[in-house]
């Protein structure tokens, strides 16, 4: 049987490749994050993990706004596991950014890049909340994680972000996943982001 770049098995996308050092960095971070929070990996890493060949230094992850005690536990364990926070060495100070719905970033100790950008979401952030609640499972070797629906990611990059890099990421996703994209899902996702398109 001919080898292909990916398979769709029981709704899960299985990418046929080895892990990179970027994947291992994200996997280590998620092994801590998932003890404290749900999550969704979005943006550039979605395209890169599915074959797009371009540079990146940050990985964007949506999380629901955590309570202070949940975040303090997460922050302590991330520190113990070798990550540092760009914004502060103190959990309380880092949490003040999340409370204001500002993003915070983590990298490995003694490194600046790559970094994880944590993006807090609530139901008020409608498009982000939609993608968060409609995840797509994806697996590369033993690394399984959640990304948005591919149709959502394509539309968001084409219609909301629309920069050169975003249009190229969207074109990559359209071409690579051509055989599994659904018009029904495109319509549903377009409905979810329509208020952002008109901004």
């Amino acid at each position: 049987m001919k080898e292909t770049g990916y398979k769709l098995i029981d709704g899960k996308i299985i990418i046929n490749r080895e892990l990179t050092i970027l994947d291992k960095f994200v996997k280590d971070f998620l092994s801590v994050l998932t003890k404290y929070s749900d999550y969704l990996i979005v943006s550039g890493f979605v395209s890169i993990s599915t074959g797009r060949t371009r540079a990146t230094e940050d990985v964007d992850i949506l999380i629901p706004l955590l309570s202070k005690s949940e975040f303090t536990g997460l922050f302590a364990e991330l520190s113990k596991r070798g990550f540092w926070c760009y914004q502060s060495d103190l959990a309380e100070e880092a949490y003040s950014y999340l409370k204001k719905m500002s993003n915070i970033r983590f990298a490995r100790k003694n490194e600046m890049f790559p970094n994880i950008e944590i993006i807090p979401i609530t139901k008020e952030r409608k498009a982000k909340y939609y993608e968060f609640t409609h995840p797509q499972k994806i697996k590369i070797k033993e690394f399984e994680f959640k990304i948005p629906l591919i149709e959502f990611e394509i539309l968001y990059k084409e219609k909301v972000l629309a920069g050169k890099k975003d249009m190229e990421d969207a074109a990559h996703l359209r071409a690579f996943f051509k055989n599994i994209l659904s018009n029904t899902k495109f319509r549903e996702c377009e409905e979810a982001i329509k208020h952002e398109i008109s901004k």
Partner: protein
Amino acid sequence: MKFQSDLDYVIYYAEEMRENPKLFNQQKKLIESQLNASKSLFSNWKGKYFKEKCRAYLRDRGIIV
């Protein structure tokens, strides 16, 4: 093969990769090479004041406030 634009190349490469997973090996090399280059740029900052230097750099570029 001649491409009219960067976008044409992206689409061509994605279609090839869909049918030929061996191309992921090339992608791995490129991704890792770029990341190692980024890491090495700041490796001489390692030490007691690493985070302070990083934060000053990040503030200068508006990455943190």
